[in-house]
């Protein structure tokens, strides 16, 4: 039961609204592009300097000058525009991106997000994540509800170094959808086959209402 990666991505895709400019993080968020609803036109931003990310190229058509923020070869679209990195983050910081859909290591009930660093482990860096969560209109996190040890990643307080403070608006996990509201999280939707009790039991964070 519960949602698999693709179902989570499909659920996240329902967050998209027609005409929006959106940034998708690496991992499950990237899959969201496969589930954009009919009639909803969304322009994907890549923080390395591109609006209008197209699909992966056909073999042999890869262009080393055309990659996404995950460094994968991509293609362009008729509406594509390129720009430099300072311009790219100007639009991110300036609130021009309606939504970012990002992965996470931990989310807290006050909207704190940790998704860049496990202390003591290899630290690769935050990339553009801190800029995104500080700048975009709405932050949706998509992640597994529990870590590999089976412990809730939806917490009262984050234990890992933060990416941003009070930045998450909505959390989509394999168990369901939760909103960050006054006092804790509000359950918005349950994944198929997941009961309210099950979601509550799997969640360390305070669930309100």
């Amino acid at each position, binding site marked *: 039961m519960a949602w698999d990666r693709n179902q989570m991505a499909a659920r996240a895709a329902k967050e998209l609204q027609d005409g929006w400019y959106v940034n998708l993080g690496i991992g499950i968020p990237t899959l969201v592009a496969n589930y954009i609803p009919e009639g909803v036109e969304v322009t994907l931003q890549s923080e390395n300097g591109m609006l209008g990310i197209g699909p992966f190229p*056909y073999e042999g058509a890869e262009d*080393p*000058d055309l990659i996404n923020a995950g*460094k994968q070869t991509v293609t362009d679209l008729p509406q594509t525009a390129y720009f430099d990195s300072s311009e790219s983050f100007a639009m991110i910081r300036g609130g021009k991106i309606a939504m970012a859909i990002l992965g996470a290591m931990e989310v807290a009930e006050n909207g704190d997000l940790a998704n860049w660093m496990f202390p003591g482990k290899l630290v*690769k860096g935050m990339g553009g994540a*801190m*800029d995104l969560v500080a700048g975009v209109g709405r932050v949706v996190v998509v992640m597994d509800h529990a870590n590999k040890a089976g412990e809730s990643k939806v917490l009262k307080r984050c234990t890992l*170094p933060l990416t941003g403070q009070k930045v998450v608006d909505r959390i989509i996990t394999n168990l369901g959808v939760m909103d960050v509201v006054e006092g804790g999280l509000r359950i918005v939707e349950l994944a198929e086959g997941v009961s309210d009790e099950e979601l509550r039991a799997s969640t360390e964070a305070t669930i309100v209402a």
Partner: protein
Amino acid sequence: MKKVYSSAAAALDGVLKDGMLIAAGGFGLCGIPELLIKAIHEAGTKDLTIASNNCGVDDFGLGILLSSRQIRKMMSSYVGENAEFMRQYLSGELELEFNPQGTLAERMRAGGAGIPGFYTRTGVGTVIAEGKEHKDFDGETCILERGIVADLAIVKGWKADESGNVVFRKTARNFNVPAAKCGRICVCEVEEIVPTGSLDPDHIHLPGIYVHRLIQGEHEKRIEQRTTRKEA
């Protein structure tokens, strides 16, 4: 006033100095000044501080300056592709200053634009904010970030005219523009130098005023993550 040099080594002659701060363009391996990096490798300049979003891979891009221990400190947002980086960092041989990617780009842009400091929400409440001045604007807490002025900028364009006007191609533009602007001296390598007047003046991404020396060369342009789809 000739800007065109015969080789990367010639273009860097008299410019390199141990301990200097270099701003480098590129994102991952896309749009990196690979020829100038090789020339710095060969010149053996050391104790470098390098402001660059990434640090190449073990055997390409800035990674080759790591192997030769020419880099003392990196100012970057993401360095995950490089095993030697991690080894030197964890052993304390290499200093690392993490910058959020947008803050790094804006710091370069600011340094080039005569803006010594600016406020941003990015990083508030994180380790990035530690020790930085905080200030509220309309109820929103921001931190003060400083402009970066580099001793040298090394960047890679697609085409340039002989007067130094540069155009970039697709996402290879990335950090090259802000890096170029923040350099007291900027050396640019391109795939093709065309006669002045060949580029449309409305299409210039980096005006010649920012570019002091220019070389043309062959580029490997390595792909980091070759990702494709099947023919339909």
